[in-house]
């Protein structure tokens, strides 16, 4: 039986005396799955991934990647994983195919440079220097450097941060194609739509701990309702979150930055009831919006904070 792609227990990373970046993390990534680590900046995602990549030493805990340990089998693992760091500047004066040729030369097996370029749709830029590439093209090249060895396991640390929507979708297609061929992926992101689109399972991290784990659907269902209603009331109005709970169809209510956020099951039932309740109590609405529940709402629900605060 093949070992899990990643298995870690009680993973801890301490910086100096009082900074605990990762605090006793347990994590399993199955073969062939795409696992997403979610969380705000500073949650410990990058530290966790760099430990899994063998670039950082953990302060404590046990890490197995592809069933092996970094200290015993570094060369074996290096030859079989591909990764892109959160930020890498490749050499400005080299062309796309020269950079891939360089990375390919380090691995004992892999795919051809041209094939890899086709994989990330950079054919037209094969002879262009790195300095002339756009942000999205650079990021696709960084992923190509990870794919040129045809790895069993791929680590991507915030692969689409700062990219335009079109570039993000192109990168998503690359990751989905890799997964469709049986590869395993660990990626970090603070975009919930990215996690919902790519990941079979996600782990939500905050302050170095895993605060939720499951498929995106299960996590969203855990909110108790699949629709979110956000409303703002006249300034000075005295609002109590609990006053919304008795309303028919409202599962939970919280107040964040003066806005009331309600989780409801059926919008067409709950919304008229909320409006008439407000009307009855004489409070005036200044803003009202609704959306389908996302992982973003899951994070807010778990921590009481928005993701990108």
């Amino acid at each position, binding site marked *: 039986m093949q070992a899990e792609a990643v298995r870690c227990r009680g993973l801890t990373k301490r910086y100096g005396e009082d900074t605990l970046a990762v605090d006793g993390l347990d994590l399993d990534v199955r073969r062939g799955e795409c696992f997403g680590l979610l969380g705000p900046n500073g949650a410990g995602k990058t530290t966790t991934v760099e430990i899994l*990549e*063998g*670039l950082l030493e953990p302060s404590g805990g046990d890490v197995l990647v592809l069933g092996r340990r970094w200290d015993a089998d570094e*060369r074996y693992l*290096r*030859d079989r994983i591909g*990764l892109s*760091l959160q*930020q*890498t*500047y*490749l*050499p400005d*004066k*080299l062309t796309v195919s*020269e950079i891939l*040729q*360089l*990375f*390919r*030369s*380090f*691995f*004992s*097996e*892999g795919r051809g440079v041209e094939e890899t370029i086709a994989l990330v749709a950079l054919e037209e830029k094969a002879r262009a220097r790195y300095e002339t590439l756009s942000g999205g093209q650079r990021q696709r090249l960084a992923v190509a*450097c990870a794919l040129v*060895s045809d790895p069993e396991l791929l680590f991507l640390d915030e692969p689409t941060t700062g990219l335009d929507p079109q570039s993000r979708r192109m990168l998503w297609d690359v990751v989905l194609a890799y997964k469709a061929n049986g590869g395993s992926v660990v990626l970090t992101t603070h975009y919930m739509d990215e996690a919902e689109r790519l990941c079979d399972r996600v782990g939500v991290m905050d302050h170095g701990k895993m605060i939720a784990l499951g498929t995106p659907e299960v996590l969203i269902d855990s909110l108790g309702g699949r629709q979110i209603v956000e409303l703002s009331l006249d300034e000075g109005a005295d609002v109590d979150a609990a006053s919304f709970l008795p309303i028919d169809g409202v599962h939970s209510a919280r107040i964040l930055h003066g806005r009331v956020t309600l989780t409801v099951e059926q919008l067409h039932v709950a919304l008229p009831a909320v409006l008439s309740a407000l009307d009855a109590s004489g409070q005036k609405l200044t803003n009202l919006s609704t959306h389908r529940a996302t992982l973003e709402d899951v994070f807010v629900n778990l921590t009481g904070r928005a993701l990108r605060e």
Partner: protein
Amino acid sequence: MSEGPGSRAIAIRELVLFRLRLFYREPGTMFWTFGFPMAMSIVLGIAFRTQEPDRIPCAVVRNEASPRVEEILRRSPDLSSEVSEEGAAGVALRTGKVALVIVPGAPPAPHTYRYDATRPESRLARALVDDALQRGEGRADAFAARSELTTEVGSRYIDFLVPGLIGLGLMSTGFWGIGFSLAEMRTKRLLKRLVATPMRRSDFLLSFVVVRALLLLVELPPLLVFARLAFSVKVHGSYGALALIALVGGLTFAAMGLLLACRSDNPQMVSGMINIASFPMYLCSGVFFASSRFPDALQPAIRALPLTALVDGLRAVMVEGAGTAGVLRELGVMTCWGVGCFALAIRLFRWR
């Protein structure tokens, strides 16, 4: 070593190509490697070109005896003199406009020479002035010596300067070419990205060494050809010995560049360290003037500097015609520095 992809030979070849491409695609490095030494030798060659020896300037303080002194000195081919007031003559001496001030004495009172004995030119002026005045007043020479004047190729300043500039160039390309680019690779996390592949670290460092050696082959000949065409500077010793010294020197400074950049991820910090390391050698190692001018007490330290060894070795071969056997001490000094720095750099090197 197998020849398939992933074999070490291929990885080293790709790393070497990577360094070479960065080198020749960067206009700045091309200038510092080739343009700068040539520009420097043109400028200094013009400034210190061989010319008629200048007359040494002297001042004669105006008094009743000065016309007689002035008349005798005017006949000397080696001196130029002017009569001025006491104060003006003092200022001219202090500011170096004249080498010597003569206060004429009305006979039987003697003349007085005022000068700074630490200035070689002043001591020369004293001898010439005294000789001219003594003769002018009737002293007879015991014999008339014959002078043979020569200006031989090999003894000019430019012959001294070119090996110095070559040594200086090898030092700065080693320091900057390796030290600065490593620091930049670390800042931009390229080093971390490479270490995340199965790349062997020794292959990576080896590629730097190989590239330095290859670049020597292309950086040295143009300078030698240029110096020969522009200033008739010849290599009197063997080219083999010259190549060996340049190679050992180039690799020594490459190892020192590696050490200077082995930990820092801040290019400004590394450039500061490179400047600190270069500056003493820039001044003391005899690039622009002979290091023997420094006091004897400092000589052992100066001779132990790698740039002194390199420049002395280059000069021994180019000017004095020495072979490899004549520069073993210099080769030894450089090898010690190179091996020591390389060993230390490997121990201290920070890969992330």
